[in-house]
């Protein structure tokens, strides 16, 4: 019997809730492609999101490898600067909007109903619609690469006027694609909020929810707050390009800096959208494998809320060199430095959770621990970047590239992989091949550090980002980064292999696949039947 551990109390679920899962007369689902096109089941849609995201992760990864191949040596060997710019741009756009965000939405679809004891998402048809918008959006976006004049070539931040008056003809398609992806995100967020607020098992209060659910609740509010800002700014671009307005065109009385304010008012909360659910996943995995309750559950929730609030007050730290007035520079420097406090609280809490636990090192735990260390390194470089005077030297160099790749690759993406290894037994009924997963882990850790750590030095030594060719003194760093990138890319094939093998078979997993796991999802059988919690489970809170 699991010890009584708040905040994830032992559960006495009614067995009937589970057993009844497929007993009710559900109409047989349509077969073949129609089943997937028309599905309203949260588990199937979650699977669709995850497969989509994995596909896009590889497409975006190939773009990154094209970039790294060109940067392997000084000089232009493989591609022209024009195509190089399209590759950096598409890599960023695909990874942010089509790989990381849908992966988290997929995990939310699968796990939030299971973790709160709900039978499905609150709005199943909307759920189906949100997903199927994504393949449309990104097919459109990728098709721009084959259009005359090529795809977007102005960086994923698409600063005006480079993206408006000077953009390629395909920019309008890029705007449309981003609009569709944005609608998908907003609808997904509405669905998640509706589910969490209305469909929790009787007796489960907000403060009893697992942290993954909490972080997603906050993330969903962030999405609803900032996606319309993105939609607004790209609509203004659309007007500038096609209807002769001058929002961002200085020659017509417009303001190119306004673009950056609007973009980063969206863009900064966006980076928290990509990291908060990762915090949630790690906060589930570390207690499980330390066999000890999460330290400071309440402060974790409050720190999440504090980070979300602060994320609206720091956007101009991306703009320290555009010539802001001194007062604005100081304001954004102070507010940015303050974000270190709640973020630090989270890291301290995870480490204190480990302290005096009973720790084992299964693959989900390895990825979660690597997350804590490497995300913190990304946080340190973030703190350095917050110092405005120093940022005059760091800004737009490879130091920044190193920083945000540390928070996004061993940050967000490692957390996603940790989550996948953690929940695969629940999804497929089999444990993933542990030996393969460990190889994947070690190769990934080595690859990530080999790729991104030298970038710190290249940036400090003076290498600007987004250049297709570089001065000779940066050659060694780039050589290492390129080798690391190909190594990391190749080792992700092990991940795909591991997932495929796990779907096809493997060691059978019980309902409670991990000894220390306590959340509600572990009370349903593995693999989780298509319909779960049709009768709500009775949620028992541990008395504290």
């Amino acid at each position, binding site marked *: 019997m699991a010890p009584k551990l708040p905040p994830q109390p032992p559960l006495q679920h009614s067995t009937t809730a589970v057993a009844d899962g497929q007993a009710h007369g559900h109409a047989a689902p349509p077969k073949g492609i129609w089943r997937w096109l028309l599905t309203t089941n949260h588990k199937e849609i979650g699977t669709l999101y995850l497969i989509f995201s994995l596909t896009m992760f590889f497409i975006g990864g190939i773009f990154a490898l094209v970039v790294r191949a060109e940067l392997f040596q000084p000089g232009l060997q493989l591609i022209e600067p024009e195509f190089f*710019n399209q590759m950096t741009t598409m890599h960023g756009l695909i990874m942010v909007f089509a790989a990381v965000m849908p992966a988290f939405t997929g995990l939310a679809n699968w796990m939030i109903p299971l973790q709160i004891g709900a039978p499905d998402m609150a709005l199943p048809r909307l759920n189906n619609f949100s997903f199927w918008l994504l393949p449309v959006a990104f097919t459109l976006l990728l098709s721009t690469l084959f259009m005359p004049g090529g795809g977007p070539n102005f960086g994923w931040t698409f600063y005006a*006027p480079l993206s408006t008056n000077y953009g390629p003809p395909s920019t309008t398609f890029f705007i449309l694609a981003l609009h569709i992806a944005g609608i998908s995100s907003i609808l997904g967020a509405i669905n998640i909020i509706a589910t969490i607020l209305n469909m929790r098992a009787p007796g489960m209060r907000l403060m009893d929810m697992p942290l993954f659910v909490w972080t997603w609740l906050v993330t969903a509010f962030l999405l609803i707050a900032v996606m319309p800002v993105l939609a607004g700014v790209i609509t203004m671009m659309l007007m500038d390009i096609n209807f002769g307005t001058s929002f961002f065109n200085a020659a017509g009385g417009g303001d*190119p800096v306004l673009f950056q304010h609007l973009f980063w008012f969206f863009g900064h909360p966006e980076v928290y959208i990509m990291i908060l659910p990762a915090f949630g996943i790690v906060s589930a995995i570390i207690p499980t494998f330390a066999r000890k309750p999460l330290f400071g559950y309440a402060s974790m929730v409050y720190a999440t809320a504090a980070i979300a609030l602060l994320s609206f007050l720091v956007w101009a730290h991306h703009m320290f060199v*555009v010539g802001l007035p001194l007062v604005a520079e100081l304001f954004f420097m102070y507010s940015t430095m303050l974000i270190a406090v709640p973020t630090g609280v989270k890291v301290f809490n995870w480490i204190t959770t*480990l302290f*005096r636990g009973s720790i084992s090192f299964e693959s989900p735990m390895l990825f979660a621990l690597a997350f804590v260390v490497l995300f913190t390194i990304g946080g340190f470089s973030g703190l350095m970047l917050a110092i405005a005077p120093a940022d005059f030297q760091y800004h*737009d160099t490879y130091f920044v590239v190193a920083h945000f790749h540390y928070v996004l690759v061993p940050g967000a993406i490692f957390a996603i992989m940790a989550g996948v290894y953690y929940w695969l037994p629940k999804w497929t009924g089999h444990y993933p091949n542990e030996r393969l997963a460990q190889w994947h882990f070690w190769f990934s850790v080595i690859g990530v550090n080999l790729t991104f750590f030298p970038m710190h030095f290249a940036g400090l030594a003076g290498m600007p980002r987004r250049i297709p060719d570089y001065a000779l003194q940066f050659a060694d760093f780039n050589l290492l980064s390129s080798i690391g990138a190909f190594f990391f890319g190749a080792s992700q094939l092990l991940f795909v292999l591991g997932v495929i093998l796990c779907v096809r078979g493997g060691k059978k997993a019980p309902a409670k696949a991990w000894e220390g796991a306590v959340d509600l999802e572990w009370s349903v059988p593995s693999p989780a039947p298509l319909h779960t919690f049709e009768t709500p489970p009775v949620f028992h809170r541990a008395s504290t």
Partner: protein
Amino acid sequence: MHSWWRWLSVISLAMGISQAQANGWNMPIGVTDTSGDIYGLHMTIFWICVVIGVLVFGAMFYSLFRYRYSKGAKASHFHEHTGVEVLWTVIPLLILVGMAVPATATLKDMYDSSDAELDVMVTGQQWRWRYEYLGEDVAFTSNMSTPRAQISGEETRGEHYLLEVDEPLVLPINRKIRLLMTSDDVIHSWWVPDLAVKQDSIPGFINENWVKINEPGIYRGQCAELCGIDHGFMPVVVHAMEEAAFEDWLIGRKEAAAEKAMGVDREWAMAELAERGESVYQSICSSCHQVDGQGSPPAFPALANNEQLISDVDWHIDKVLNGVSGAAMPAFRSTLNPVEIAAVVTYTRNAWGNDTGDVVQPSTVAEQISE
């Protein structure tokens, strides 16, 4: 007031970071007071992060090692302690305040561009810099001088590959110089690490920054903001001179400018123009229209055998002077002088099988500019 963190950076130096400095691993200390201050801030925050990292990761790896399940560790069940939580909130807060104080002082200093003795207007253009010494009647553009053959690997790459220009910005040392930044097209960013100046040049805006260089020398940097296909080929080179040498240089420039203007009025021969035009074409036009004039349609049309170009001289000159609105072709009326424009037009009209035989005189171009 700044002394304590300068002191800290001295310790950093003693701890072997000077080695990294020499190897080009770290931020340069640079040759201005500001760059030294920034280096001090950088090293201070770096060592703070190292210390925190050692403590935090030390605690983490100790726990991982000490409390292994495989060694039979029994989990305890504590899950909160307000005192500890307050402590690890307040201590970072204090460290941050301690960091914010010197950072604020440096930033205020960087923003104070009053009492400058020389004003230089820096204008970003795709993909070159234009420098104008305000009130001195001296202005010129600065293009990358690395040959395309080095980039493609046909020639051995030189020591300053991609970081060399035809005309560097020349500045005097020991004088406070105000840099006014703007742009003619998209956003660029003028950056020289040794001077610790990085400032966006933005169309429609004039940004201010300043620099006071302590040591003569040649300092190299690059455009730091993505500005189109040749963003990577837009270096900044600053040649800092003793004040007397700078004054001589300035006088020399003024005389040369006067001489150049004379060239506009005389009659030029075809061969002379074509030769001059070829070098202009190579450094300015060939990045889009290609060395062989084939361009890369549709964004960058071919010039070789271009019917409209061959048939209409005035249209041709007009496009070079004023650019093509809504397309990538920029206006060169302020970048190039009439001689250069006449030369490049003449060259283009007689190269790659465009055998029009036309000779466009600088005086014709000058007339068209004044219209």
